């Protein structure tokens, strides 16, 4: 049994933790929250210089070839730091879409730029409230041009290009690369529950669109979301762990009725429950990491399990962190809301847990052997 990260990635995780503790303390997401800066461009440049943006990209395309496991350990640390950078959009989604579905020419063109961080990519899917259904996508695609509106695209106002999901006919989606600085694209920053990660509405009017040739078949969106859900789960677990750590630290130093509140079982048992949720989510994220690393047939199940556990842990832990802090936890001044906002943002980013639960059951019914395993 070797169900853990290899030693070199454990070291990378430690380095990343130290680096982010130094370069991305809570004052950094707070700066993005309180100013008009859409993201921490200085931090983005620094992590790109260290090769994080190219972690999963093979060396032949300008990456550092750490594989998807490398992205997972970095994601956990970025989540812990509530880093205000477009890492998930550019790395888990745009880079992954090109690696999974791009032509050789597209890989050679885009991957080195994504690896170096000079280009930021994102993924544009949602057009209306409700689950992501490829059949309902409104975009029309005619002679290489796309028209329509995408709501709340993460990092849509800072990205250079978006991988845009359009209706490929019938129930299938078809992915296209759209240059967001080209004619026919207008974008407007939208207010969101977590301003530390900016979002935009994209209005596309006959914008030039370049198809990803591998994306025309069935299951494209699920496949991309499965690959993205695993590092996203690590990012969520990292944020939940940070919120737990914050609650524990406060429970030790805050006194009421003459004793630390952490000595009351009402608080103690709550914190134990938070710890349990984080550990279960972490274990499930590890299963997802194994599946993306090995390209296992179980990936849809593993990704769903990782996603659901991480989303539920993130919500539970960050709301109970506020509760542990009492009235202070509800103030702008305390950092509790940074974790609370981010946890909810990430749990919505790839679709809510309700749709992932149905997805999980569909996959399990197709793979009966996994139910008892």
């Amino acid at each position: 049994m070797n169900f853990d990260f290899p030693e070199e990635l454990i070291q990378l995780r430690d380095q990343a933790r130290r680096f982010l503790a130094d370069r991305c303390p809570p004052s950094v997401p707070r700066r993005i929250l309180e100013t008009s800066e859409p993201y921490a461009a200085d931090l983005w440049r620094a992590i790109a210089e260290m090769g994080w943006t190219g972690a999963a990209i093979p060396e032949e395309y300008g990456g550092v070839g750490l594989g998807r496991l490398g992205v997972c350990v970095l994601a956990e640390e970025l989540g812990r730091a509530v880093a205000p950078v477009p890492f998930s959009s550019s790395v888990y989604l745009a880079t992954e879409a090109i690696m999974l579905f791009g032509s050789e020419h597209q890989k050679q063109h885009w991957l080195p730029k994504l690896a170096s961080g000079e280009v930021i990519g994102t993924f544009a899917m949602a057009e209306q409230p409700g689950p992501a259904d490829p059949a309902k996508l409104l975009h029309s695609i005619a002679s290489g041009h796309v028209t329509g509106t995408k709501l709340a695209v993460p990092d849509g106002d800072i990205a250079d290009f978006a991988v845009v999901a359009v209706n490929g006919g019938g129930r299938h989606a078809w992915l296209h690369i759209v240059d967001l600085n080209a004619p026919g694209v207008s974008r407007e920053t939208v207010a969101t529950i977590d301003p530390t990660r900016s979002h935009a509405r994209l209005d596309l009017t006959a914008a030039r669109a370049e198809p990803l040739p591998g994306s025309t078949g069935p299951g494209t969106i699920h496949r991309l979301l499965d690959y993205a859900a695993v590092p996203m789960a690590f990012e969520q677990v990292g944020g939940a762990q940070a919120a737990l750590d914050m609650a524990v630290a406060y429970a030790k130093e805050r006194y009421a009725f003459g004793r630390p509140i952490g000595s009351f079982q009402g608080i103690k048992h709550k914190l134990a429950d938070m710890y349990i949720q984080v550990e279960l989510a972490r274990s499930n994220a590890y299963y997802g990491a194994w599946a993306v690393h090995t390209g296992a047939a179980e990936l849809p199940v593993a990704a769903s399990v990782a996603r659901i556990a991480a989303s539920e842990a993130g919500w539970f832990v960050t709301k109970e962190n506020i509760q542990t802090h009492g009235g202070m936890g509800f103030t702008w001044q305390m950092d509790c809301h940074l974790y609370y906002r981010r946890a909810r943002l990430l749990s919505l980013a790839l679709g809510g847990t309700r749709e992932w639960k149905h997805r999980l059951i569909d996959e399990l019914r197709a793979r009966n052997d996994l139910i008892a395993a």
Partner: protein
Amino acid sequence: MDFEDTPEEAAFRAKCRAFLDANAERRKPGAVEGYRRGQDAPGAMERAKDFQRRKYEAGFVGIHWPVEWGGGGGTPIQHVIYNQEEAKYDVLTGLFGIGINLAQPTICTWGTPEQRERFVKPAMRAEEVWCQLFSEPGGGSDLAALRTRAEKQGDEWVVNGQKIWNSGAHYSDFGILVARSNPDVPKHEGLTFFILDMKTPGIEIRPIRQISGSSHFNEVFFNDVRIPDSRRVGPVGAGWKVALTTLMNERHGMRDAPGPDVAELFRLAQTIELENGPAIDDSAVQEKLAEFYVRSQGLKYTKFRGITALSRGQTPGPESSIVKVVAANKLQDILSYGLDMIGMAGPAMGETMPVAGIFEEALLYSPALRLAGGTDEIMKNIIAERVLGLPQDPRADKGMPFRDIPTGTRK
């Protein structure tokens, strides 16, 4: 990152399988495991003892114990591998768990060479069966509040009092006993640990009928029971520290809760018709199934992380402390949801009920799993204090002589 054995682990696993294939029947696919199922069947003890003796002779008892204890000197991961394989076979070994997993490690850690020589091997071979005489009506979670008295008279100790929740006391040859040797000092300092021959005059054992109707537990009463001082384990007054060795072994087990799990709930959902068709097609049922599946998988991979630590020669991290509390609660949530789906037919019990009646059976035994070996509340205190480093609760009895401390139920 993988789930594979190392070549050494694979070779050991093959040895385990060869032994088990030759000495036990494989569980049937889909068979459900209940709590202490089969222990009451006629001849169960004899069959279990026979298997245990062969297991000992093949070197699979005390695999990871030091050689000087009489163990195999193997690694913790080998112990885990054997247990993983044994779980696939229809064997009863729980009857000897207290003797082998709790009593002998405590005796080997704290006892005399003579005690080790006398007791360890017969326990490993199941020639002698053991019970645990710790809890009392006034001392459960607060074990150190126990009141059973042990008074020194010459070379003997005279024991008077009562214990409770003593699994298997009625068929045990020996018990591990903690008693109060000095009520004038603070509660943790006045305890002493003994080995008690269960045939000693003055012991009365009364079965406790559980809510399931069966009786795996007992009350044990002591009326001037005499124990030679040579059967004392550890120094006089050190009983709390000795008992902690036992308790750590008890809680170390990363124990799962036997009973209906996700697979059984799926089977149920596939067989039951709801208002709009099979339950498995119902959206609300699907979401519940997904939640339970995610929790089950979380537990499974948490255990795998612990096993990986063992495989790498490390001590499992604190993650293993969550297994018991999560598993026992999940069991109750799953059985309750299953019963709810069965609906008006749900109260009936027995093999003819869906999934062999395991949901109804588990309803009546599952509360035990949240209590035994440390209640949920104690386990959460342990997580909060030992893992998260939170301060202990202030103790109203701290530093007080035991005789001045209120214990038990006062009205």
